[in-house]
Every structure is written in structure tokens, then in C-alpha cells.
């Protein structure tokens, strides 16, 4: 079994290797290879899962040590795997959704001559992501962490000939790097504090060290949070996610909705022991989560680009998860649960969006859609189910997971609990609003599309089955997953051994919370219907309120980055280049020049007149005599 974990990672890695080095001769079969290997690793995952279910709850953790990676003095970095329930959940999600999206891409990328490479990158991503979740120490996790970053860079920039894509890719990678600083500093802190960075060393020690090393552990917590912010597009490092939509839609679905962006949640949950020992860090986490869930939601309301709208929603949903994770043992389980359900319905939504674009000549502006429900019924249905799930329609998966999170937030207790819970509710309302907006603008109302630049009149059509089938499967997930998990709180029991779990005593009863959620849900949907359902949607965006305009620009956060970081950076580098040339180099050249000048001046003494030479000799002698006499005098 242990070796199977290795194979789990190896299969897609192999795929990446073969596809990226294989060359043209693989063009025709490349996508099949990629998909098969993804499927294979899913199968491995399932086998491992079955095996795990076979064992009893406390003995389910599976570990395997491959080899020592970097052995220097006390610094012993191993390549070793640890597969417990938490990892297992991710493995299934990643390989499952991953496989579906591979299949989907076969159709979606059918017309791209670089499809082989695309599948290579997808496999590379799967490998890195799996490595991230099965690593048994932070150092190896870091490798996976950067690996997914690379894959996301390659995939966002897949259409490199588009400058916008290239820029977006670069931005994503660099913002992620900022987060990575957090992770690497965290690892260093662990090393200097615990002398190790293996989970089974650090986490237990963190518990009892909390008193002696409180400051350090809080520091580690903050650093991990920074890392999570980068990867999971949380405020203040969220700016890259919107641009990341430049990538092909399957990428957005897999990486920027279902899996990679949730790595931050994984990191925090995995490091629960540390956060439990560092309340200040936890507060920071929940704050970030709450802020982001509102931030994302607001941005989502203003976007006319369907993918950007969904991206905003992703941001906000992950905000929920982060907040939940920040709540500690009360929340971990629900964070993960929401993560999984979100994986289903958000992936579904993105695939739906992709299908729509596929039918509309890659048009992304929702104001150019409208009334598509009769042209692409399957897409409409699956997308609709996903929509119901995300807004938390009773019975669908989103309902269970989100509801639990809001309850947990209240259960945090005190004003903090109220604030967080309130934020959660507000978020739910806004979610309902913007998702309804998307739904209405895309599938209802009358058609608003126009010929594109080349004058092709888009004639919407349903996508091929290779695309629709994954959508359907995901739709199933988005409908039933929640219920399945919550039934006699299966999921809680499943994860409890890893994350621990505690029922907080909520000031408000579960029923009340549910009722409140329903209420805000209705409100949100209602407003949206009033604005976009009742009257026709203008096919050109109205100027909109100040907030709307700000939201369209990601609440000006990008502009801030541009002015402060980009411009400032440019000025800094330019002035440094000047400085290097004029000052640092100048000093040296100056010295050389001054020697030359001195030489030129001394040279004049050699004026060619014997008599002046004689003078210098006489003078020299005089000095010599004087000096000698002086020496004796003193």
C-alpha cells in the first residue's frame, strides 16, 4: 500500500515527463495518455481509500519514507509521504475532479495545436498538487506548493501569444512567490525552534511548546497565513486570481476553483496544532477569511465577464473556508467539507461557463449572452444545479457546508462570533445576488449577442459529450455531496482523528441560523431578479455607482498595487541602475581618471629644457641635503 502513495504521485508526473519531452510524434495520442494517467492515479486513490476504510479510525494514517533529500547537519529533509484522512479527502477530490477535467479538456482543447503540451501541464499540476497533500513534512510540501505555482503559471499563460495571458501568468507566479516567503520563513522558524519540520515532529511539539515559545509559534502561524493568502488568493494577495482567468477555462475550473486555490485551507488545517497554540494568529486568519469572503462577493457582483464573476465568487467561498479554518477545531471539518462541495459545484459552474463560451466563440461578456437556456439545455441544467448549490439552496451540498460554517462562526462566541457570523450571512446574501445575476444574464432574457470582430455571428450550440458528461457528474456531486457528508455527520467522524473536532455552544440555535440564511438567500435572489430578471439587461455596461465602478476594478486594489509596487519598483530600479553606473562605477572610473589627470599634469614638468632638468636635480639635491641634516637634527 505504501508504495501506492508514491505511484499516486508518480503516474501524472510520468505523464508530464512523457508529454513534454515526447515531441510532435505524440500530438495525436497525447491527450489520451494524459487522461489515462490522471484516471490511473484516481484509481490508486480509490484503492487507497478502500484500504483506509478497512482500518479503524485511529490507525488509518499511512506513511512511507522514500529517501533523504537534503541531509546537512541537523537539517534532515526527507522525501516521505503521509496519507491520513485529510490527505485522502484531497487526493480523491484532486484526482477525481482532475480526471473529469482532463476528459472535458479533450473536447474543449480539440482545436488547439498545442493540446499535447496542455495535457502535459495538467498532469504536472496533478503531480505537484498530490505531492503537496501527501507530503509528510513542510519542506516537501513546499516543493509541491511551488510546483502547483509553476503549473498554474504555465497554464494561465498557456496562450502565450496573448500578452494579457503572459502578464497574468507572471503576476500570478510573483504574487504567489510573496506568499512563499511566508512558507519558507515558517519552515526556517520551525527548524530553529523544533530542529525539524516534519509534521510528526513539529505539530506535537507545538502543543506543549505553546507556553515557552509562544511568540515564535505565533510568528510561524502568521507566516503560514501569509503563504495561505498567496496561494488561496486571500486579501491582500488576492489580486492575481481575477487575471488568472486568462487561462483556458478547464484550468480555471481545476486549478483556480476546485483544487490549487484551496491549498491554503489545507495548509492551515494541517497546521491546526500550531494555530490552536497561537490564538493571535487564529484571529488574523478569521479576519482575513471574513474580509475576503465579502471582498470577493462584492467584486463578483460587478463583473460582466462570466469567468471573472465566478473568480470573485471563488475568492469569497475560499474566504468562508479560511474563516472556518481560523475558528479552530470547531471549524476545520466544515472548512474541508465546504472545500469539497465547493470543489464540485464551482468546478461545475466553470465547466458550464466554458461550455457557454465554447458555444459563443469564446465570448465572455455576459451582456452579450442571454436566453441561452434553449440553445444549450444540458449546460443550463448542470449550471443551474451548481448555482443552486452555491447559493445554498436547501438540500443541495452548498447549503449544508456553508450553513455549518456560519453556525460555527456564531459558535465562536462573543462579539467576534457575532461579527463573523454576520459577515457570513451578509456574504451568503451577496452570493445569492451575484450568482442569480450571472444565471439571469446568461440563460434568461432575450438574446443579446452580436457578430464578433471577424463578423462571425455566433450560433450557440450544446457542447460535445466529452464536455457535457463531466459537467453532469459534477452536477451530481453538487447536488448530493453535502447531504451525503452531513448524514449523521459522516464527514465529521471521518476527519475528526486528524483535525480534532469540538462543538462550540452557539448563542443562536442551529435552526435560527438556517432560517436566517434562508432569509438572506431570498433577499439576495429577489434583488437580483428585480435588477436583471424583470427588465432587460443593457448590452453595454451602465456607468454604475461608485461602488460598482470600484468593484469592477477589484475595489481599486490593483490600482494600488500598480501605483505603489509596480511604478515604485520601476522608479527604484531605474534610479539604482543610474546609481550603479554613476556612483559605484563612477568612483572607480573617477579614480582612474584622476590618476590620468595627475599624470598629464606631472608630464608637463618634462618640458624638454635641459636647464629645467638641472633645476630639478639641484632642488632634489638641496632637499636631500636638508632632509639628511634634519634627520640628524631630530
Amino acid at each position: 500500500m505504501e508504495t501506492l502513495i508514491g505511484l499516486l504521485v508518480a503516474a501524472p508526473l510520468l505523464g508530464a515527463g512523457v508529454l513534454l519531452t515526447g515531441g510532435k510524434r505524440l500530438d495525436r495520442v497525447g491527450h489520451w495518455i494524459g487522461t489515462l494517467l490522471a484516471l490511473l492515479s484516481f484509481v490508486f486513490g480509490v484503492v487507497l481509500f478502500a484500504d483506509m476504510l478497512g482500518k479503524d479510525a485511529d490507525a488509518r494514517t499511512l506513511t512511507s519514507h522514500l529517501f533523504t533529500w537534503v541531509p546537512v547537519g541537523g537539517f534532515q529533509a526527507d522525501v516521505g509521504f503521509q496519507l491520513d484522512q485529510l490527505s485522502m479527502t484531497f487526493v480523491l477530490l484532486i484526482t477525481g475532479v482532475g480526471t473529469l477535467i482532463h476528459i472535458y479538456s479533450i473536447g474543449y482543447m480539440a482545436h488547439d495545436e498545442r493540446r499535447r503540451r496542455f495535457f502535459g501541464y495538467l498532469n504536472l499540476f496533478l503531480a505537484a498538487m498530490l505531492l503537496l497533500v501527501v507530503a509528510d513534512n513542510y519542506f516537501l510540501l513546499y516543493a509541491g506548493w511551488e510546483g502547483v505555482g509553476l503549473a498554474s503559471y504555465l497554464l494561465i499563460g498557456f496562450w502565450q501569444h496573448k500578452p494579457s495571458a503572459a502578464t497574468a501568468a507572471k503576476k500570478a507566479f510573483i504574487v504567489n512567490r510573496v506568499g512563499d516567503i511566508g512558507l519558507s520563513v515558517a519552515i526556517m522558524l520551525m527548524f530553529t525552534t523544533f530542529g525539524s519540520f516534519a509534521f510528526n515532529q513539529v505539530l506535537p511539539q507545538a502543543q506543549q511548546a505553546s507556553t515557552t515559545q509562544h511568540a515564535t509559534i505565533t510568528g510561524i502561524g502568521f507566516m503560514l497565513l501569509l503563504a495561505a493568502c498567496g496561494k488561496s488568493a486571500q486579501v491582500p494577495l488576492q489580486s492575481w486570481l481575477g487575471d488568472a482567468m486568462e487561462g483556458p477555462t478547464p484550468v480555471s475550473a481545476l486549478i483556480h476553483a476546485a483544487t490549487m486555490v484551496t491549498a491554503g485551507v489545507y495548509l492551515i488545517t494541517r497546521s491546526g496544532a500550531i494555530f490552536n497554540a497561537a490564538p493571535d494568529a487564529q484571529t488574523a486568519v478569521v479576519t482575513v477569511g471574513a474580509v475576503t469572503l465579502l471582498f470577493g462577493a462584492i467584486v463578483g457582483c460587478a463583473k460582466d465577464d462570466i469567468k471573472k464573476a465566478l473568480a470573485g465568487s471563488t475568492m469569497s467561498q475560499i474566504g468562508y473556508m479560511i474563516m472556518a479554518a481560523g475558528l479552530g477545531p470547531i471549524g476545520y471539518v466544515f472548512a474541508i467539507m465546504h472545500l469539497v462541495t465547493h470543489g464540485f459545484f464551482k468546478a461545475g459552474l466553470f465547466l458550464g461557463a466554458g461550455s457557454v463560451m465554447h458555444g459563443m466563440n469564446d465570448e465572455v461578456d455576459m451582456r452579450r449572452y442571454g436566453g441561452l437556456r434553449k440553445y444549450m439545455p444540458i449546460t443550463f441544467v448542470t449550471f443551474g444545479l451548481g448555482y443552486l448549490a452555491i447559493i445554498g439552496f436547501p438540500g443541495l451540498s452548498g447549503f449544508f457546508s456553508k450553513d455549518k460554517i456560519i453556525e460555527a462562526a456564531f459558535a465562536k462566541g462573543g462579539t467576534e462570533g457575532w461579527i463573523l457570523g454576520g459577515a457570513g450571512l451578509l456574504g451568503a446574501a451577496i452570493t445569492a445576488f451575484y450568482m442569480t445575476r450571472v444565471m439571469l444574464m446568461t440563460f434568461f432574457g432575450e438574446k443579446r449577442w452580436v457578430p464578433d470582430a471577424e463578423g462571425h455571428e455566433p450560433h450557440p450550440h450544446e457542447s460535445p459529450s466529452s464536455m457535457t458528461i463531466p459537467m453532469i457528474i459534477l452536477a451530481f456531486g453538487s447536488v448530493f455531496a453535502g447531504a451525503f457528508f452531513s448524514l449523521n455527520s459522516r464527514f465529521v467522524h471521518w476527519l475528526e482523528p486528524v483535525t480534532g473536532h469540538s462543538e462550540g455552544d452557539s448563542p443562536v440555535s442551529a435552526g435560527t441560523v438556517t432560517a436566517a440564511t434562508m432569509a438572506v438567500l431570498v433577499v439576495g435572489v429577489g434583488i437580483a431578479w428585480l435588477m436583471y430578471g424583470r427588465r432587460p439587461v443593457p448590452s453595454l455596461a451602465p456607468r454604475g455607482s461608485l461602488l460598482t465602478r470600484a468593484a469592477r476594478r477589484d475595489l481599486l486594489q490593483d490600482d494600488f498595487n500598480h501605483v505603489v509596487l509596480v511604478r515604485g519598483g520601476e522608479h527604484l530600479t531605474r534610479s539604482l541602475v543610474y546609481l550603479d553606473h554613476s556612483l559605484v562605477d563612477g568612483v572607480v572610473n573617477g579614480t582612474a581618471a584622476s590618476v590620468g589627470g595627475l599624470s598629464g599634469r606631472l608630464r608637463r614638468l618634462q618640458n624638454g629644457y635641459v636647464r629645467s632638468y638641472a633645476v630639478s636635480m639641484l632642488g632634489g639635491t638641496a632637499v636631500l641635503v636638508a632632509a639628511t641634516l634634519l634627520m640628524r637634527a631630530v
Partner: protein
Amino acid sequence: MNPANYLYLSALLFTIGAAGVLIRRNAIVVFMCVELMLNACNLAFVTFSRLHGNLDGQVIAFFTMVVAAAEVVVGLAIIVSIFRSRHSASVDDANLMKL
């Protein structure tokens, strides 16, 4: 009479010679000034020889004269040849090479 005076005289002559070398332009005269310096040395030698009561100084004086003579031969040869090619014996005209 104090022998020191002879030394003062020789020093004076030497200085005059040196000064001459510095201020006169005509190569011949410059050279004569050098000769003067040499003779100043001779005077010093002889004086000291007397002072110390040994003959070395006087012998050296003879050597100096011979050397001076040899210098005259070589020096005049050079100066004359340069005079013939330049039609001037001024040392200041001879500064093709400088800097």
C-alpha cells in the same frame, strides 16, 4: 689664516658654477660652468689634503683634471656636432623630445 675660508671659496665657486649651469643658454658656457664646479671640487680636495696632512686629496685633484679633460673632449665633440647640424649652441633650442 683659517683653512675653512678655502672651503668657503670652493663652495662659492661650486655654487657659481651650478648657478651658471642653470641660467646660461650657450651649451659651451654651460659646460664651462660644470668645469668650474669640478675645479671647485679640486680646491676642496687640496684644502682637505692639506688639512689632513696626507696626499690623497692632491692626487685626486690630478685625477679630476684628467677626467675633466676627457669630458671636454667628448663634450665638445657632441656640442660641436649638434651646433653644426642646428647652427645654434643654445641648449634651449634642443627640445624636440619632451613630455
